[in-house]
């Protein structure tokens, strides 16, 4: 399993280089790094599968003494570990740059460093999006096809969430019971509680996602 993770690292050295350089630049220019974090992590998913699809490497992997469950687990661990490390790097970059306001482009007073709760919440959202996305890659075995589906799913789920939050103001989804909206709004307004629940939910989603991906990987023909 370590070998599989090492392989993903070797393939994505350039990605890590861009993260290393890119994240401080994003903070200096005061872009919205938390959104960028999600994009970068989902981008990593595309990257690892793209390299594999381009040369049908899965055929070779399956022919080697590597268990299919380990191959799938290794990829899940690699991506989630990378996401956690990236988030730590985002946090570190943010707190370092906060101490050097003269390098910030624009108004330094408007600079918003990443808070711990913001970081953890972003990680949970990313994990849930990863859990939704990864099985598509194992099902379609095409990085481009999966990226399109992934894009559609992420867009629709974000849209649904925004509509839901603003359902009353927009005058839609009038049939949703008040208690349900109140429950959801409770989590939106209490990030600390959401973080606790978020951890359990995101890990559960990743586990379920792994089960589905493993099934696709072992029951479908390798293209």
């Amino acid at each position: 399993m370590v070998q599989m993770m090492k392989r993903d690292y070797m393939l994505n050295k350039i990605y890590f280089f861009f993260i290393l350089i890119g994240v401080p630049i994003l903070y200096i220019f005061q872009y919205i790094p938390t959104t960028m974090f999600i994009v970068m992590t989902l981008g990593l998913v595309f990257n690892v599968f793209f390299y594999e699809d381009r040369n049908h490497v899965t055929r070779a992997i399956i022919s080697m003494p590597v268990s299919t469950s380990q191959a799938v687990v290794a990829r899940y661990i690699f991506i989630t570990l990378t996401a956690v490390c990236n988030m730590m790097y985002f946090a570190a970059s943010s707190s370092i740059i906060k101490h050097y306001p003269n390098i910030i482009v624009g108004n330094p007073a408007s600079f918003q460093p990443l808070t711990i709760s913001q970081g953890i919440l972003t990680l949970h959202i990313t994990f849930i999006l990863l859990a939704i996305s990864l099985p598509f890659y194992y099902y379609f075995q095409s990085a481009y096809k999966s990226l399109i589906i992934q894009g559609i799913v992420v867009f629709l789920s974000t849209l649904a969430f925004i509509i839901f939050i603003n359902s009353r103001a927009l005058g839609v989804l009038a049939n949703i019971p008040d208690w349900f909206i109140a429950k959801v709004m409770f989590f939106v307004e209490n990030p600390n509680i959401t973080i606790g629940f978020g951890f359990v939910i995101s890990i559960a989603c990743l586990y379920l996602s792994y089960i589905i991906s493993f099934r696709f990987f072992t029951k479908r023909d390798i293209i």
Partner: protein
Amino acid sequence: MNIVEFHNVAKKRKDFSIENLSFSIPNGYITGFIGPNGSGKTTTIQMMMDILQIDTGDIKLFGTSHKNYRIKQKIGFVYDDLYMYEDFTIKKMKAFIAPLYETWNETLFQSYLKKFQLPFTKKLKHFSKGMKMKCSLLFALSHEPEFIIMDEPTAGLDPIFRRELLDILQEMMTRENQTIFLSSHITNDLDRIADYIIFIHEGKILLQASMEEIQEQYHIVKGERNLLDADTKRLFIGFQDSTVGFQALYRGDLTLFDDVSDQLIFEKATLEDMIYFMTRKGI
């Protein structure tokens, strides 16, 4: 003992299907897997390696299920292309692959690397077809596998390296318990080195026999057209009829033709003859 056993394996694909495929690969020999393009050779190999899922039936490798990943420690594979990350170099590939095999032999790897004259730090995407095949072979052989599976390894290779490859394979056969399964439609290669032949056509096994048996039993019979009538046609596995005469593939004892032997020419059938006539019943 058999290294591989297929028992009534079936697989349906979009425009191709394999039904009731049963054959075995004996231990300690080179088995050639022949058949025209699109006959099911690659599909069979991919099912054996668990790349393609079988619909029904059973495949055994080393007496255990082909899904057992541990048995792949004993298997070296060379496919029709190098399925590896094209941005990798041989150095990176080795860093990834070598630790996966318990029997990795670094000295052997270095000697093949030198023998094949492959660049250690050049990206695979800059390799020629021949270099890719050599690279595939390098990794297939360096862990000293007991069983080597090769899918069209000589396709696209220059004649010099093709001959070298066959020499390497023959050299390997001096090792105890070494088994090679080689699929090819270039039958000349197999005429030279194979001990057993499995012939597949349209997803069905038409023949499984030793080379000795094939050389003794199968003959090409040539003669004038007037000797070919409905009765004689039935004697042949396949025949080709033209204005200058006929030629046909015959299996069995040639004494049957003793009465007309002065009017016929008999030759030993090559594997190419067999593919040709067994896939064409009569032209």
